[in-house]
């Protein structure tokens, strides 16, 4: 079922966010990630992977397959809002992926870390807000809204989209 797939991806994203928040901390006590430390390096790689997955699978699938169906049910206001958040996530993801890849190769200096941290903090705020709305307003009731058969068909489409992606 597509609702479970999307929900699981939200959980996976939140898991990485949780670990980033625990590792980095917040505000003026934020601790810089060190790409020479294996655990930090792994976290950065996972962040890049998550962002790529968001930008290339999760968001386009929702926009092309899910939102039009919800619009048919009169959810234009909700999907419009979610779409705008997708745009913000894309823009931040691009900067975060670039910075994280650069850090994986060359490490962070003070300036790069500061920009990366600001973008990451904004991204986390928007993603959490986005997931809250999607989970509460859409995912939790998707089967009721679209019917089990449509949810199953969409899951097949989504799996196909993911499997076509190069590894």
């Amino acid at each position, binding site marked *: 079922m597509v609702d479970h797939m999307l929900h*699981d*991806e*939200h*959980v*996976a994203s939140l*898991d990485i*966010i*949780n670990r980033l*928040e625990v590792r980095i901390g917040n505000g003026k006590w934020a601790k810089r990630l060190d790409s020479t430390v294996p655990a930090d390096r792994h976290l950065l790689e*996972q962040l890049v*992977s*998550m962002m*790529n*997955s968001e*930008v*290339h*699978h999760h968001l*386009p699938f929702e*926009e*092309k397959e899910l939102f*039009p169906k919800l*619009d*048919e*049910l*009169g*959810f*234009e*206001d*909700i999907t*419009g*809002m979610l779409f*705008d*958040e997708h*745009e*913000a996530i894309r823009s931040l993801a691009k900067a975060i992926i670039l910075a994280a890849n650069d850090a994986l190769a060359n490490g962070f200096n003070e300036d790069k870390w500061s920009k990366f941290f600001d973008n990451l903090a*904004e991204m*986390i*705020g*928007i993603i*959490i*807000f*986005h*997931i*809250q*709305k999607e*989970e*509460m*307003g859409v995912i939790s*009731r998707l*089967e*009721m*809204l*679209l*019917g089990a058969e*449509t949810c199953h068909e969409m899951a097949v489409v989504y799996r196909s989209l*993911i*499997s*076509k*992606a190069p*590894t």
Partner: protein
Amino acid sequence: MPIFSIAEGHWSIRVVRTAAPPSMPRTTKRQPPARAVPGSAVKLGGATQRLLPELVPLRFFGVAVFAHAATWAGILLFAEAFPGFHGGIGPALAVLHVAVLGVLLASAMGASFQMLPVAFALPPPPKWICDAAFVLLVGGGAGLVLGFSLTEPLLIIGGGALLGGAVAFHLATVARLVWRSGDHSPFRWHIAAALLAIVAAVTLAIGLALDFRLGGLENHQGVALTHFILAGFGFMGLFVMGFSQILVPMFAVAEPVGENWAWAAFGLAVLAIAGSAAGALADASPLLTAGAVTGFCAALCHVRQMTLILKGRMRTRLGQEFVLIKTAWIVFPLSLGISLMISLDIGPDTLPVFFFFIVIFGWYLTFLFGVLQRILPFLASMHAARLGAKALSPAKLTSPDRLTIHQWCHFVALSLVGAGLLLGNVALIRLGALAGMVGAISFIVFGFEVLKRTRAHLAGTPT
């Protein structure tokens, strides 16, 4: 090839993600809805907006925030009226009604009008209904509070009539939303039972108001206590327990697990409210005792469900609001333990007034301001998005320092006023009320900063 997989923590999930295809096109323009949905289980055609104009919830929450400050100011001014208060017209009753009507009922109305359509995926009520409910609430509330302060029965009756109108609009709207929701979760039943309780509470309130003028009600104090049980625990209690089913999972990014605990809490709460109300009306202590015990069990079941929801949350870090919300979860069963002591005639004579205080300020206000501090930036951000601004994290609208001041002042106020009421010490009550007022002002500043930052964000968004 899997890039990463997760099979840890309480979610016990395994998600495998693959690297993204670099060639996949990016969607930059929203595509219009193109086709019908075959096999769709629900049709919601025409439900194009679930958000009311921002002014509607803002007015209700604005009244709540200012009435909060007015409540503490009232306690500060009329502190000597509180020790030994056992009901009856006067400043103490007036101040309690500022809290109950101005803060709690206004927030309940604002939340119902705005949050229920979102929660049930239904169109919001027409704006004129919200406007009418607001005008009647403010006018009626002011009349009633003035009537209590000045001991003027006609003002009490007039204010009560207007408030009855506000509740009728609210009731009809919420009942319609609940009925149309098709939802069978505990949330729906909590709200439905809360509506029944408010009908009974308002009916008794009208009787009490008329009795101030006409007399003839033999058991005025018993009816007043029944009114408090039905309005306080029946309406607000069930309303808060019901809304917790959607708000707490939303705040903590968690699944609404533990539904059996919610049903148990609901069943026990309804029994407790019915039993206690009958006990108060018939002046039957055993019924009040049984009601307190059952209510205590209901509170424990509710808190158990809430802790299960938090335990299964997806996000580790909890927001600042959970300091207040968790405190309210401790005070909720505690307040019912105190009601049990009163029904068994254990404890000092000052315990009843302490009980009123701990229920209204310790349980409801603590919970409510935990919710409001999260909901205000959340709604502001959604409204900004609706007005075409680029996506904005609610965290960017929040000023944590103001909230920290409010939280600590609230705790100091609860401790000092509570101790003052128990000991009959007016100075302690005044000191606590002063702390509460400082906290309330800090919360007002927080609210204005949310508005200011939202407006600045809107102004900075190119059109």
